[in-house]
């Protein structure tokens, strides 16, 4: 279980200081699918980066099974990310000078996962192994990013607006892959979006506004990527 308590974060100092997170508390059960919803600039990405140990908060704690990772040293945090965390970003961030296969191996090698070929098949890129990111469409690139994150066999998967740069069709496809992986591997999944329709796919929705959580609710009957509106 992940439990976040009293997270604060301020960027800048003096007059230009912006308080981006103003005391965030939340809990995420193992195997659940949580969507963080909020307007642009409400602090979603910042929160996600902090929960996923990419960034340190100014105050508060982030506990994974009771262990506060904000107290970890940098190298311990890196080791923690290595075994526990998977990321998918809005801008994909694939390595431009490496093929699809090598990009996925970036994740697979960390988990000594030799079976990553199956994952590439599963995201429908089996015939694009030797292609470079510049030779792929946006949706294909995002699927490589998903395969790369999954090949790492993480405990928790973080997604920051994974469909932000995609059109409706490709967006639904990508979300469908994510939902599938979540279900078949009961992978804890935390996704940030500003599209309230996508929130219907989650077990639990956390709504943010100006650095605060304004509402949290459970979804009784999550919909599939093809049932939600867009």
């Amino acid at each position, binding site marked *: 279980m992940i439990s976040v308590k009293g997270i604060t974060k301020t960027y800048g100092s003096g007059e230009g200081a912006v308080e981006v997170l103003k005391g965030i508390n939340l809990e995420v059960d193992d195997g659940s699918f949580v969507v963080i919803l909020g307007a642009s600039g409400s602090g979603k990405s910042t929160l996600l980066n902090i929960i996923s140990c*990419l*960034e340190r908060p100014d105050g508060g704690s982030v506990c994974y099974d009771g262990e506060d990772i904000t107290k970890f040293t940098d190298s311990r945090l890196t*080791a923690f990310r*290595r075994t526990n965390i998977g990321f998918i970003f809005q801008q994909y961030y694939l390595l431009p000078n490496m093929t699809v296969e*090598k990009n996925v191996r*970036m994740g*697979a090698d960390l988990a000594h996962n030799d079976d990553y070929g199956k994952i590439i098949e599963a995201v429908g890129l089996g015939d694009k192994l*030797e292609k470079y990111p510049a030779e792929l469409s946006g949706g294909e690139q995002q699927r490589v990013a998903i395969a790369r994150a999954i090949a*790492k066999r993480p405990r928790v998967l973080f997604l920051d607006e994974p469909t932000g740069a995609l059109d409706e069709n490709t967006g639904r496809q990508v979300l469908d892959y994510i939902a599938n992986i979540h279900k078949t591997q009961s992978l804890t999944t935390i996704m940030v979006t500003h599209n309230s329709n996508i929130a219907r796919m989650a077990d639990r929705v956390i709504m943010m506004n100006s650095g605060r959580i304004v509402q949290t609710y459970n979804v009784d009957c999550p919909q599939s990527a093809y049932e939600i509106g867009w």
Partner: protein
Amino acid sequence: MVISYRDALKVVGIIIVCCCAVFVCTLFLNYNLDLCGIEGELTTPAAVAMYYAQIDMGRVTVGVTGGCLVATSAIMLVAYIKNYIDSHGRELGILKAIGHSRISVAKHFVVFGLGTLVGCIIGYVASYIYLPAFYRTQNADGLFPDMPVTFHPELFIVLTLAPAAVFSAIAVLYAFMRLKTPVLDLMREKREYAVKMRQGKGQKRTFLKEVAVATLKGKKSHIFFVAFSAFCFSAMVQMAISMTEIASQTFSWMIGGIGLILAFTTIFMALSGVVRGNSKTIAMMHAFGYSDGECRRAVLGAYRPISYIGFVVGSVYQYALLKLIMTFVFAGVDNIPDYNFSWSALLITFAAFVLTYELIMYVYSLKLKSLSLKSLMLE
């Protein structure tokens, strides 16, 4: 316009190399020109022998040092422009897209010749200031009559304005050629090597090895600079140590100093380029949980063997060059000690080299560490 005069001054590497090249060339050429003027006044056979030896020495030094440095700065210039075009692909692509012709964009690259001019002038002025002292050391034995330093305008033109003009022309021409890339490829910052790097099936490397290979293959100029840096360090420091035995102290300080300046400039240039060029990969690797050590070994470690190769080549080169000068140039001159390969110079230089390079690698590994994903994502 995309290229400003400040961009031109950022070619610090070129400025320093040009400065060194012109410094050495001015020293010897100005001396040789003045020396030719007093040829008729020489009477003793010793003075005549010394005269020819020094003239040849000047030619060899200018040829070897000058040629080597000019080639280096040309490669630096081309690498710099290539890098500039690669990293400003979007702006250049937009310029082309809205209808600027290739030549109208390329002509702005002329400012890169400015760095050459600045470096050459600094080198010339520094050399001119040092000339009187140099004349005294060259005539330490008092074999020649007193010789005043004369200003040779043609030398000034050949060593400052001409290289600047040539380098500006190279810059424009090279930019013109590179800009042939279709607009979309410029904007997409499509990597040329992306297509060339296919490898046969069956030979699977680990991801970290792949990063090392991709780093090496990505920018070939970095390989050259790292090797050249080690080469300069090795050759010129060893030469400096050997020269204290066979030539004057000032001379060896000069050679050693120039060697170190060149070595540091090129290694910093190369490694900064490596870190900058791989910053996204490194940040992503950090995010995924690759440790600092793994990132360092994958990205910087690949350059270590190259620097050792450069060192070995430098050692051999300096020995061959000194032996050549001693055997042929100073053949007729008395009181010139025999020159043998100095193992102690090699050992001292190698120890200093390993220490310095590991330190520099360490400094850059700290730089890698500080690359946060957040800052790259904001780009």
